[in-house]
């Protein structure tokens, strides 16, 4: 049913979006630690 908000296609898309957003968050976490490591010392 096209207008059923619980349809599986929508659920799958939501889960895929959530996964990407989670990876983005992990990316920010790693990026800030790596950037802090690579700052020129002196």
């Amino acid at each position, binding site marked *: 049913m096209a207008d059923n908000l619980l349809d599986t296609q929508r659920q799958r898309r*939501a889960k895929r979006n959530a996964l990407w*957003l989670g990876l983005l968050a992990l990316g920010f976490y790693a990026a800030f630690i790596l950037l802090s490591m690579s700052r020129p010392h002196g």
Partner: protein
Amino acid sequence: MSSTHISDASHDHSHAHDHDDGHHGPMKGWRRWAYATNHKDIGTMYLIFSLAMFLTGGLMAMLIRAELLQPGVQFLDPGKFNSMTTMHALIMVFGAVMPAFTGLANWMIPMQVGAPDMALPRMNNLSFWLLPFAFALLLLTLLVPGGGPAGGWTLYPPLVLQTGDAFPMAVFAVHLMGASSIMGAINVIVTIMNMRAPGMTLLKMPLFVWTWLITAYLLIAVMPVLAGAVTMLLTDHYFGTTFFNAAGGGDPVMFQHIFWFFGHPEVYIMILPAFGVVSEIIPTFSRKPLFGYDAMVYATASIAFLSFIVWAHHMFTTGMPLVGEMFFMMSTMLIAIPTGVKVFNWTATMWKGSISFEPPMLFALSFLFLFTIGGFSGLMLAIAPVDFQYHDTYFVVAHFHYVLVPGAIFGIMAAVYYWLPKWCGHMYNMTLAKTHFWLSTIFVNVLFFPQHFLGLAGMPRRIPDYNTQFADWNFVSSIGGFCFGASQLLFVYLIWSTVRGGVKASAKVWDTAAPHGLEWTLPSPAPYHSFEEAPEIK
């Protein structure tokens, strides 16, 4: 007219009920809450949790104000005093304000976009249930050797590295809060992007949904940065790294940059949803549509963007190059433009409106006036040369408390008074609610306004003792604090008594005003599953 409307809505819902085999009520007993996947149950748990944390953090604030009632160390030695200010801040920011808005998001976003529930209900359960463990851990730090964290909520090294056994507990607690917030934010984004009713385009979404969407992106961008910062503190403390230790080639000022890259957007994370709430309430009680809807959306997005390029205004006195000071001063002042657009549009919405002053509107108006005071003192602090005098004084304390208490917290209270009858199906006692409003508004000013004077006269933050020249205004501020704290008990009583019973609320709740949005098409109290059949938006 409205009663016909209500019965239609109830009829539609019961019709959907008859044909849906998947429909079920809540589980019984503790399982309902422990295994909750329903957005309303999780929203309720978030709101109750945040109220508990508001009272806990408030109790700490009372202790701080009792210590500062008169000069001299009364009953909190400097270490314990600093522990109280640190814990008060962490609890209020991460335990009270943020979960309250997540609770409101859980309750309202599915109802406002025409969805049956949040997109990812089980992740929703996990994001809530991390919080009680995180805060239990944080509060337990008060009992371990060396006491709780006392380096300020900003956790600056090297000071914070002097924390005793509480240090790893606090770091882990911050990680748990961060994970909870990120999961909550992901859920909000995917719900809004995937679960909207047919016909609800982005620019037809209610402002509360819009502000939360932008807030959720901010959360995903900056909570990992805080997590990274505290992870590096942990490795500096226990694993011999020197990220923030000059002796090993690191730089403690770098921590401040990383922290405030998180910390400034965090300020907007706490205020943007309140902007959304006020944008819902003012049109309702002005009986006019919101003035400049599109401009409000773009202003919110501009504020969010600018929040990423202003962080070093918290660090003017660390000795950055002049060009840096100029850049951060100018970019900070730019924020006044979209914020001004918002204040203008709220005012223009009321212009020639038929205004009435129900409790949500009173709190929204108080927000408008008092948040603007906080905004203006923020502009003063943005002026780099002037900030050298204000930095780390009570002026800063006055500024951010104006933004956060009559700003964020009044926004939350306005939302509770606006939507509570929709949630529980009962109308609250108006006289008592108005009494709570007046007591809160009067005493929040008695509490925080004198702190501007103290700061300008040079009283430093985070010090339990002070020169006798500051005695009078500290006394006034403390009395204001005790009265403000006591008035919140009225709020607790009001919520408790309204949930238990009272005059039945209609579906529209504010029948004599002009509420707008899908949530008012549902009966009060809202059904367990909001929209099983998607409403059609024209």
